[in-house]
């Protein structure tokens, strides 16, 4: 199975990089967010704003990039590619994991670009914090991509994939406190926010980038992200291995 994961990963990665225009626009939106919204945030939060905002933009990127990964499989299902692969001896789990790995690697590449853009504006991060932050994105992206594939495959009316997914992604983004820290939120909103995994992801990213490696915030973020990834991959696996489609 590792070899099949690798084969699917390489194939999908090559296809994704071949569609480089999509990648450029995928990363352009978070970068524009940084450029057009970041300075404004600075006037409210002061000079720490980049430390707060760059992690938020990374979560936005994860939700948009990995969270909408299922879009690709809608087409593969329609063109019959998926069915062709399901009749090969490759395990169906490998078909899923290969794709999830592609989305995760692509996301990490995009994240590096966003961080570089942030650094150009004055964002500062220690190397260890940067690496921990990127590592934190891995389970979040993998989980989001797996959920997105499961959702795309279960959906009967696939033209609804994009509208329904954004209806999920946008509230998740707002509730995570990616745009503005949730500490300023009224009590009920803060409580709702704590029920979403991305809230912990954002806060752990901020902690890692600030160099607070021994903090409970970081530990909680890593734990929640890992749990989210395990649950999401379980759902994705079930959907992918089901024989009836």
């Amino acid at each position: 199975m590792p070899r099949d994961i690798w084969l699917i990963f390489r194939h999908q990665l090559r296809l994704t990089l071949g569609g480089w225009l999509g990648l450029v626009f995928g990363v352009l939106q978070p970068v524009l967010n940084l450029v057009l919204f970041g300075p404004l945030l600075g006037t409210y939060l002061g000079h720490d704003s980049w430390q707060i905002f760059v992690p938020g933009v990374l979560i936005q990127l994860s939700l948009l990039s990995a969270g909408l990964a299922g879009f690709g499989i809608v087409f593969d299902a329609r063109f019959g590619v998926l069915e062709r692969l399901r009749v090969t001896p490759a395990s169906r789990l490998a078909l899923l994991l290969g794709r999830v790995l592609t989305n995760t690697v692509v996301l990490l590449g995009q994240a590096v670009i966003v961080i570089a853009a942030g650094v150009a504006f004055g964002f500062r991060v220690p190397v260890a914090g940067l690496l921990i932050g990127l590592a934190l994105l891995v389970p979040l992206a993998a989980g989001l991509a797996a959920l997105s594939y499961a959702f795309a495959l279960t959906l009967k009316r696939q033209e609804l994939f994009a509208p329904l997914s954004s209806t999920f992604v946008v509230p998740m983004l707002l509730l995570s406190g990616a745009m503005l820290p949730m500490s300023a939120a009224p009590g009920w909103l803060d409580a709702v926010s704590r029920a979403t995994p991305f809230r912990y992801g954002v806060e752990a990213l901020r902690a890692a980038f600030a160099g607070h490696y021994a903090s409970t915030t970081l530990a909680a973020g890593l734990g929640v992200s890992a749990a989210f990834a395990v649950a999401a991959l379980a759902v994705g696996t079930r959907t992918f291995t089901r024989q009836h489609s």
Partner: protein
Amino acid sequence: MDHVIEARGLAKSFTGTDAVRGVDLTVRAGEIVGFLGPNGAGKTTTLRMLTTLLRPTGGTATVAGHDLIADPAGVRRRIGYVAQGGSTNPSCTALQELVLQARLYRVPDARSRSLDLLADFDLADRAIGAMSGGQKRRLDIALGVVHRPAVVFLDEPTTGLDPQSRSALWEHIRRLRDQHGTTVFLTTHYLDEADALCDRILIIDQGRIVDEGSPDDLKARLAGDVVTTEIAGDPGRARAALADLAHVREVRVTGRTLRLTVEPGDRILIELTRALDAAGVEPLSIQHTRPTLDDVFLALTERKAAARAA
């Protein structure tokens, strides 16, 4: 291994409907077998069961030496499947898809096998989105046989293709069997396709196999040859002279034209003209037509409709 596919009582019911109600079929190694039936008869459902894409709700089957239920992975290694609606990503090139497929099947030297297949199927390594319908279909089949399967399942291989592409594709399908000994199991609702390609035809209707045989056998048994003759004299006399002949099954008269359903035979026209001569009726024209599978199909469905009405 003599039988490549052997199914007993294979059935599939979806909630509320029985799509396939107990199919028995046997396919020998090296045969080209056509699975013929109207839309909704259960062709694709049967095919999807035999290729492990759908789990049967009843019955058993062995495909390429492996048990369908107990060892679907073993079946998958030994079969090729070409689905109805295509199987390729338009943003890939032909070679990318072939190499991926070959590697997933662990074909040694995947790249050179893929290049050979491109040549075999008259394809260039181009973006699939830029290929014609016939080229895409040939690529689908090349993908289905990349691992030299014992049997390849083709679901409506030529639907939507122009006549040239169809006959080119038939040639490729024949070559699979003739040069590589691959067993071919295909579904179609084109009777001419079944006639041109298949050694044997299974006819499925409403989830059951209703008849089977070689194209010639089915035509002889179910449709018969048709002789049409126009006469100068009295149609009643002509009818009386012909109706009792040994090889004549049925006579219908329309004006001065007689339409006879007869058993196939080379001497039938001679017999008929002699009988007309003896009765003093002069034929103006006489024409012998061999049946098509369309006639077989209509005969079968008419018979069933009559049985239902009775």
